[in-house]
């Protein structure tokens, strides 16, 4: 017996083959982030990429928790669910299990996804449902007006930490890898091209994609990532990870990363001591390497790694669930309620 859901989906008219544009993904709601907020760029890049992802918007669902980032679904002309603090990943998991046919996206932040929702985050990653997670990391609580977050640097002076925060920050990429994520990436709000590429790759990945996006909160934590995003410092402070390519960086492309034992170190390509051939070559499929790369994140003297740390295949949760159901049906036949009710020890009273 088919369910009502299957019936109405079958009856739905086919999506038009006219190619969608970014505009098709803009909802009629006024965007209400602070002027200048990095969220605008993320929204714009997402809307720009979506037509290329190629999934009709009625089959897309954006789910969020609470925080500035979590207003995102209201601005996407898709299905959307603005949930409660930290729980978007759990809501999304239930939806994806019930409806594997949908393209499910989670939009969260460093507070929503790593503090109050940290538990759900690590579990969705290890389960590997085919869901895409965009984590806007601004290293601050914006919506509650400026308290330190789980990614704020230690010693951060905020309203709740007038003497400086005591907490050591999470490294989101390392946390995701430690949770056995199959796709882990980092991108920048002020690098539209890179962000578009990364989001597209996340969409294409089968399994949970974890994308950390450095996002400027110009009201409560302005410039937190300027070193990595602004023209004059970016080239020397960021190393872009590209599959199959050596880790080269610097304005003049004159520096690189090599492995000294298990420790990455910066070497000059100018002084004749090292050449490109000595450098670490990125491999998205190498889990061990991904840990080493993610671990570069807060290391002094080492450029910030940005790009796709890991992209590997592992069975997808909802498909395995469907497989078990199919197996049970094959073995025991389609469930019959009348039979079940009358199964086992029964007796008749005349």
């Amino acid at each position, binding site marked *: 017996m088919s369910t*009502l*859901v299957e019936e*109405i989906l079958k009856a739905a008219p086919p999506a038009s083959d006219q190619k969608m544009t970014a505009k098709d993904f803009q909802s009629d709601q006024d965007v209400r982030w602070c002027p200048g907020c990095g969220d605008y760029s993320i929204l714009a890049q997402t809307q720009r990429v979506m037509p290329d992802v190629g999934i009709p918007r009625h089959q897309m669902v954006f789910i969020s928790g609470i925080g500035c980032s979590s207003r995102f679904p209201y601005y996407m002309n898709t299905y959307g669910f603005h949930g409660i603090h930290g729980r978007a990943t759990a809501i999304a998991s239930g939806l994806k299990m*019930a409806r594997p046919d949908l393209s499910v996206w989670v939009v969260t932040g460093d507070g929503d996804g790593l503090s109050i929702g940290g538990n759900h985050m690590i579990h969705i990653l290890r389960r590997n449902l085919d869901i895409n997670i965009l984590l806007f990391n601004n290293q601050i609580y914006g919506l509650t007006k400026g308290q330190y977050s789980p990614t704020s640097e230690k010693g951060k002076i905020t309203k709740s930490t007038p003497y400086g925060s005591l907490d050591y920050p999470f490294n989101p990429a390392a946390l995701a890898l430690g949770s056995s994520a199959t796709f882990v990436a980092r991108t920048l709000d002020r690098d539209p091209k890179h962000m578009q590429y990364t989001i597209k790759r996340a969409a294409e990945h089968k399994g949970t994609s974890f994308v950390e996006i450095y996002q400027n909160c110009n009201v409560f934590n302005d410039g937190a990532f300027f070193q990595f995003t602004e023209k004059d410092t970016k080239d020397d402070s960021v190393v872009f990870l590209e599959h199959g390519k050596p880790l080269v960086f610097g304005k003049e492309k004159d520096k690189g990363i090599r492995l000294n034992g298990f420790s990455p170190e910066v070497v000059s390509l100018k002084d004749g001591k090292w050449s490109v051939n000595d450098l670490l070559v990125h491999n998205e499929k190498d889990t061990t390497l991904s840990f080493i790369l993610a671990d570069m994140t807060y290391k002094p003297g080492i450029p910030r790694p940005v790009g796709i740390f890991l992209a590997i295949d592992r069975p997808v949760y909802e498909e395995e669930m469907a497989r078990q159901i199919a197996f049970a049906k094959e073995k025991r036949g389609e469930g019959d309620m009348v039979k079940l*009710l009358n199964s086992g020890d029964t007796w008749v009273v005349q």
Partner: protein
Amino acid sequence: MPEKTVQNLDEVTIRFAGDSGDGMQLTGTQFTNTTAILGNDLSTLPDYPAEIRAPAGTLFGVSGFQIHFGSTEINTPGDQCDVLVAMNAAALKVNLGSLIDGGTIIANTEGFNDKNLKLAGYTSNPLTDGSLDKYRLYAVDITKLTALALQDMNLSSKLVDRSKNFFALGMMYWMYNRPMEPTIEWIKNKFANKPEIKEANLRVLKAGWNYGETTEIFSVRYEVGPAKLPPGRYRNITGNQALAWGLMAAAKKAKLDLFLGSYPITPASDVLHELSLYKNFSVKTFQAEDEIAGITSALGASFGGALGVTTTSGPGVALKTEAIGLAVMVELPLVICNIQRGGPSTGLPTKTEQADLLQALYGRNGEAPVPVIAAATPADCFDAAFEASRIALKYMTPVFCLSDGYLGNGSEPWLIPDFNELPDISPKFRTEKEGFFPYLRDDKTLSRPWAIPGTPGLEHRIGGLEKQHITGNVNYEPQNHDFMVRLRAEKVERIANDIPLAQVEGDASGDVLVVGWGGTYGAIKSAVTRHRQRGNSVSHLHLRWLNPMPKNVGEILYKFKHVVVPELNLGQLIKVLRAKFLVPAVGLNKVQGLPFKAIEIENKIDEILKGK
């Protein structure tokens, strides 16, 4: 062979008691299933410690299982037991108080060795010191007889010891004239892959039976004839199983997939276990990372067009509270099952209580009305779960379905319903684009349309922020909020049009009305019946829907001189009745982790009748 007399009984209550490792729950369950098949009416009370294997021989490690069965109508597991099977000294000590004067004790003598006596706090052996003279005592060396039955099998002493509960079971089967076949079948299936254990258990079971048959010490056998139940096909069922099946039946009748998001918690885990078996019914069960993910995943599934369900107990509900509020706001169907246990906090995980009523009714931030239904008996959990699902789907709302540890673990014979006669409760998903607004309501039910992702043209956003009437857009205007809060309340109130009027058992007016809800049904019914047999003017009203209540509840209450409300809490329903109907109701409250005894309620009614 010694001459045995056979004595007929209308009803009898047996309590099996031993160490938590002695398999008393299994023994009780087997005895129950066999008794059910014989056509007796019955009611059971499993009573076990929270620790999985509490230290052997201790008082707090005692596990008990009580069954009350008869050829008459049985409503409770029995106030006191007629027969106590005590596998050790601690089991005797803990349970002797519930044995009637002149009752029967069957004691395993090996369980009364010096060490056991000391652990139980006995200074002399009660089996031999005469302190049990007022009872009919049968001291049987069950441990030794079990070992004898297995002596040529070369089993470890641990395995031998584990089989001894089957000896006790065999003896009781003989004494109450029950067939061994159902248990033999069960053993054969259960231990199909462990031939040694299978053989051992079968031998010991039969040895117990034969012991009864051949020994001199038992001179009487008892016969308890079948009960006069309404005709039809029956099965024995526990509350948790009935609840699971009720949810499955509802999903089938709604033509939806059932999605359960749940986290293990006593005494609700059995519902998760049960539903996990039925993958061929397309049931999707998700053991989430915590209680919150349990409910939020279910809500996500509902958004996608499944029947979303979460099952838990009180502490879990506390964690789910915020998500229940979200479900109220986004107006999606969701069934929240609370198998209540003793609280507060971790409380008494394995004991029963009904102290979560106010939590279900009011335990959320803001004005967040949720319909609440409570099951009255183990089998009734099926109907309550079905009904909760029906209302959730029709009114696009979370619904609380309350059960408790006593109902969940207890069992009773159940007249199997005709599945085909159950109503079609399938929802109507919105598909037309024209005139679609996510919060444009049905005139009659006030429920909003259910438009599932994947439907072209109906893309919309929902969330926990206040919604604008009709459009569903985020809206903070004072008038709109006031309106929406009232509208959500009104929607839940209107469910009263959709539920049956309350029925009084007994006369429609009189001296005393006993008002109950949930698992106290059987005890109240027994107490009220006894009073009516004594010629007193006493009636019973049992509330199934606690929110909204049936429209005629006030009317009924006003027709009685006295209203008594027995509850396994400090007075929760009574607060609501007093506030709603301004009646001077009197409470009878008990919070011992145990169900009411009928006699407790009977006495309370007497007290009130005397004072009138």
